[in-house]
């Protein structure tokens, strides 16, 4: 569905993404892992049109989408979340969700003056939908709170909630899990699976929590230093010694000592 062809992204002399090529299969939930600074977020930004690549191409369903602006990609069904939450801070949580769907007739100025009926109906439906999502994310009590004044994790939830407001084809999740309670994260995992099964969303998920990755992802791609390091099922990846060396590590060194003490 998405094909990334030899993408490079350089910041000055620094090669954040350095010739990454990968393919995302339709209907899959692909995990993207890799050490901090491997270039995962940068690659997302290139795919999502936030950053122009230095070189390389990105295709979606065979169509060249390199360099298309994010809002056009949104309308093609490509959504993304941000690693560092980008909430609309002076708007309520509900409004944060309600603003998402595209092609709202109320977004045309003309209609705000002469199409009030239609807008009212649409708004009612949107609100119902937003409340449903909030409830799912266990933050329905925050519906009327300013999004700038909710907790860090709650912001991440809102971030995820926005992707649930529309029918997306492919969703890029950049560390939805960081800062989210693990129990809730597992519920989120279930939803992702459900969205994938029932609505046919394709997901690409950056995450450092191996439990989460293990629960939902197949295949898994591991990046390092701007390149694809390994690709395969999670078990294959976990067994890959390059991955272990660069990313997974071998657990706590002090762990046994600590246990010995107690």
């Amino acid at each position: 569905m998405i094909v990334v062809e030899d993408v490079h992204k350089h910041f000055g002399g620094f090669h954040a993404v350095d010739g990454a090529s990968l393919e995302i299969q339709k209907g899959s939930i692909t995990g993207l892992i890799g050490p901090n600074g491997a270039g995962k977020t940068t690659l997302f930004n290139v795919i999502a049109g936030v950053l122009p690549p230095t070189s390389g191409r990105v295709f979606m369903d065979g169509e060249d989408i390199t360099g298309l602006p994010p809002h056009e990609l949104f309308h093609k069904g490509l959504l993304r979340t941000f690693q560092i939450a980008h909430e609309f801070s002076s708007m309520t949580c509900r409004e944060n969700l309600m603003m998402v769907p595209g092609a709202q007739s109320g977004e045309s100025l003309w209609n705000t003056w002469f199409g009030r009926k239609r807008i009212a109906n649409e708004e009612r439906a949107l609100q119902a939908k937003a409340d449903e999502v909030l409830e799912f994310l266990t933050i329905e009590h925050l519906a009327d709170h300013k999004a700038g004044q909710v907790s860090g994790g709650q912001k991440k939830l809102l971030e995820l909630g926005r992707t649930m407001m529309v029918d997306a084809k492919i969703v890029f999740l950049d560390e939805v899990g960081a800062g989210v309670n693990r129990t809730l994260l597992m519920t989120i995992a279930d939803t992702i699976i459900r969205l994938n099964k029932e609505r046919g969303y394709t997901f690409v998920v950056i995450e450092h929590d191996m439990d989460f990755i293990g629960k939902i992802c197949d295949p898994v791609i591991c990046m390092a230093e701007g390149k694809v390091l390994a690709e395969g099922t999670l078990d294959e990846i976990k067994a890959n010694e390059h991955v272990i060396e660069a990313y997974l590590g071998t657990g706590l060194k002090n762990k046994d000592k600590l246990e010995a003490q107690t």
Partner: protein
Amino acid sequence: MSEPVKNTLLFVLVGGLILLTGFTQSWNAAILILNMGLISAIMAIGVNLQWGFAGLFNVGVMGFVALGGLAVVLISTPVTPGAWSAGGYGIVLALLLGAATVVAAVFVAQKMSKGRMQTLSIIAILIIGFFVYRAIFDPNAAAVEAIDPAIAGNLGGLNLPVLLAWPAGGLLAAGAAWLIGKTALGLRSDYLAIATLGIAEIIIAILKNEDWLARGVKNVYGIPRPAPVVGYEVDLQNDPGFVARAEWFGLDAVTASTLSVKLGYSLLFLIVLLMLLWMAQKALRSPWGRMMRAIRDNEVAAEAMGKDVTRRHLQIFVLGSAICGIAGAMMTTLDGQLTPSAYQPLRFTFLVWVMVIVGGSGNNFGAVLGAFLIWFLWVQVEPIGLWLMNLITAGMPDGSALKAHLIESAAHMRLLTMGLILLIVLRFSPRGLIPEK
């Protein structure tokens, strides 16, 4: 005190201040303040639309207001006899060629592949275009400007009713805003600010120096009034019917005529204000407004959520500027003359900003309230300052140098008092008098 009650009280208070002017000074003075207040309110709505709704830092208000004023001259004044044949067509031709040059350069920039060749062609086009433009433009402009320079020297206008100039002013400002927006809207906050500030200065420079357009610094006097709603006092004073009616109200003819003319303007301005206020209010409280606030809060996220930030910014920039243009046209109509050197950033850009911020940015009613209040103060703090000075010096002996100095400085107390009031209001209501919810 609940929100609506407080807000109503604030409006009543400002209304009361204007009424007080009427009772203590004169109704003419009061209604004049009201009229300029109405115009200022429209400008404030325009700025609020851009800043309060979308976070666009436009400090080029002055330029758009001036364009509105230009529109009045171009629409409502009579054509200067012989100007078109002397050089008017030549000027238009030159301007078209100039525009064509720019379009050609942009076309080359977009279509030709990057490289030395492209740069060279662009430079060549621009240079040749510039000289051709100057070659045609200069003699023609000179010819037009030579026609009776003391009283004309410009092309003149279309001699249409002046009310048409109001929408035309909006359109002219909108056109300019579109061009500016296309190039400058990518800039962020303060950078956009200085860009708009600069463009406004450029607009004024053109207005001041292109005499063939609107007489430059020589001013255009005698702009017709929007008859029949607004007539001429002298005509009214000579109309026995009017004088009779005035007497029936217990007014002398002069007062009645001046009041009736001013009220005529008030009526027109009020209609425009209410219309724009209604539109702005509906827009704000709709998904469109929500989208705008989202864009204001976080452009990157809004873009990722499918909102075309660039287009929306352009839309609101054009709209807000058009509103300022309309207000500018109204103001020139009220003045009855176009005075390019009157356009000073302090008065036409920053004062409007003060209105919006003091009133409460993001809130249309706040902006309107701020406009009335600040304009009232701008006019009335001078007597307040003088009064203050008189109070301070009351105890001093007549003829003392200090007393003379203090009274002499009274005019400067206007700015000082203005500043003081501004700080006091913002101190007790830092988000404005009627803050955004």
